[in-house]
């Protein structure tokens, strides 16, 4: 089986990192697809929490927003948004938080705020949303990003959410006891923090990707693990399940539904 896209490889790699016992704080886009794919394959009891307040969501299609009705309908319960951030996220009950960003540096610091100076930005990005506290309160953080020099940068213009800090040492210095960025999943490879330095290094190349491709797409002088591995290609089950999910999702979102309006 080699007929799959880099994005599919990224989503499937992310899904594999989740286990049945994880309680996962889910953002929209790739993380949502990865989490639901995990739930539909190897981790049926994976708990998904969306910041809209839905606890234990089991959506049949991927939501377009983190507050789609599908989430509330399939959840164990839906709580108020202050409670999600107070009792569940800050309360330390989330094992994995998924983040992404417009920019990430070698220490997993993420920028989703501005490109350029804050007061006169070249590009005004959406902002932090839940990310600043997901970054510090979840047991581990998984980051999904498309691999390009525009996104994987030497220095982020703004630290929206902390990885290991500008020099890799600031997370510990702040007294944060959660692990932080434990895995970065791109469309080319996996990166993990190197012990001691906390620098993200490439630990696995996706099938068909070589070191040069990764180096060219990374804005810093990226390093490779001595025991660099190769990512298992998608299985038929993974790919079939993901495509079914995407098809159901596309069908659902293309309907214009204005019942009652």
């Amino acid at each position, binding site marked *: 089986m080699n007929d799959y896209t880099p994005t599919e490889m990224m989503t499937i790699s992310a899904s594999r990192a989740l286990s049945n016992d994880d309680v996962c704080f889910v953002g929209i886009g790739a993380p949502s697809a990865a989490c639901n794919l995990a739930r539909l394959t190897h981790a049926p009891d994976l708990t998904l929490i969306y910041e809209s307040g839905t606890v234990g969501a089991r959506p049949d299609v991927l939501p*377009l*927003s983190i507050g789609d009705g599908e989430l509330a309908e399939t959840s164990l319960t839906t709580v108020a*948004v202050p409670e999600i*951030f107070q009792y569940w996220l800050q309360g330390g009950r989330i094992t994995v938080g998924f983040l992404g960003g417009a920019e990430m540096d070698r220490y997993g610091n993420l920028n989703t705020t501005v490109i350029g100076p804050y007061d006169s930005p070249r590009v005004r990005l959406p902002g932090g*949303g839940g990310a600043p*506290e997901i970054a510090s309160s979840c047991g581990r953080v998984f980051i999904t990003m498309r691999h390009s020099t525009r996104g994987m940068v030497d220095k982020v213009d703004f630290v929206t959410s902390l990885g290991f800090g500008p020099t890799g040492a600031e997370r510990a210095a*702040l007294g944060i006891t959660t692990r932080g960025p434990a895995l970065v999943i791109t469309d080319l490879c996996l990166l993990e923090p190197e012990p001691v330095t906390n620098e993200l290094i490439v630990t696995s190349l996706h099938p068909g990707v070589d070191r040069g491709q990764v180096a060219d797409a990374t804005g810093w002088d990226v390093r490779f693990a001595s025991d660099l591995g190769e990512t298992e290609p998608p299985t038929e089950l993974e790919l079939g399940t993901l495509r079914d999910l995407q098809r159901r999702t596309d069908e659902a979102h293309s309907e214009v539904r204005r019942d009652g309006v």
Partner: protein
Amino acid sequence: MPDFVSLPDAISATVRDGHTVALEGFTHLIPFAAGHEIIRQGRRDLTLIRMTPDLLYDQMIGAGCARRVVFSWGGNPGVGSLHRFRDAVENGWPHPIEIEEHSHAAMANAWAAGAAGLPFAAFRGYMGSSLPAVNPRIASVTCPFTGEELAAIPAHRPDVGIIHAQRADRDGNVLIEGIVGVQKEAALAAGMAVVTVEEVVDDLAAPSMNSTVLPGWAVDKIVVAPGGSWPSYTHGYSHRDNAYYKAWDEIARDRDRFLQWLAENVMAAS
């Protein structure tokens, strides 16, 4: 007991130029009809509070209502940018706006503190983030028992809080179901609470003793506005119009196209 009034009357009686106004709703129950009425009434210099500005504030900012926006995530969920918001921040069109930027956790805590009548909220947040460096309304407090330093932000206390809900009964008690977001907090934290509802019924028919109900005596104005959350949705009454959210991206990219949309879909409507 609240007044049962028309949407134009509810807005003209509560929202004044220069006010701090919150139209809340976390993806669900966003009070679009009320926001459009604020645009039609030509309100200016508003401080607009919302966790997720969404299309509604994109429209209000593009229409020139906002002087300042207090928010935590300003995107079109699952689609991309809020182009009117970006045009205001990046290019000052139709005029420059101030922003006060927080995280979701901060905003949610600020709403809870506002509803609780507290001046500020303390929470464990913003650790290692650049946001405190650019937002002077992020401070800190120290736990008197452990010495831990926590983030602190001012409570939200808008002049007017506007939400959409499923229904009210004839005493003005309001039922909110599904993704309840920060709606209850936004109504309770505000000086005046305006609620648009799908319908007014004899029996609220709350499904549980513990359902989220705003008592009528905590609400100032009730407006019957069926479909008032469209293109957002009202659980049990309507679905989210995802196609509208996707189509908005094209409309909002271009100033002229936006102005035409505004004239035809907001100013000419009622």
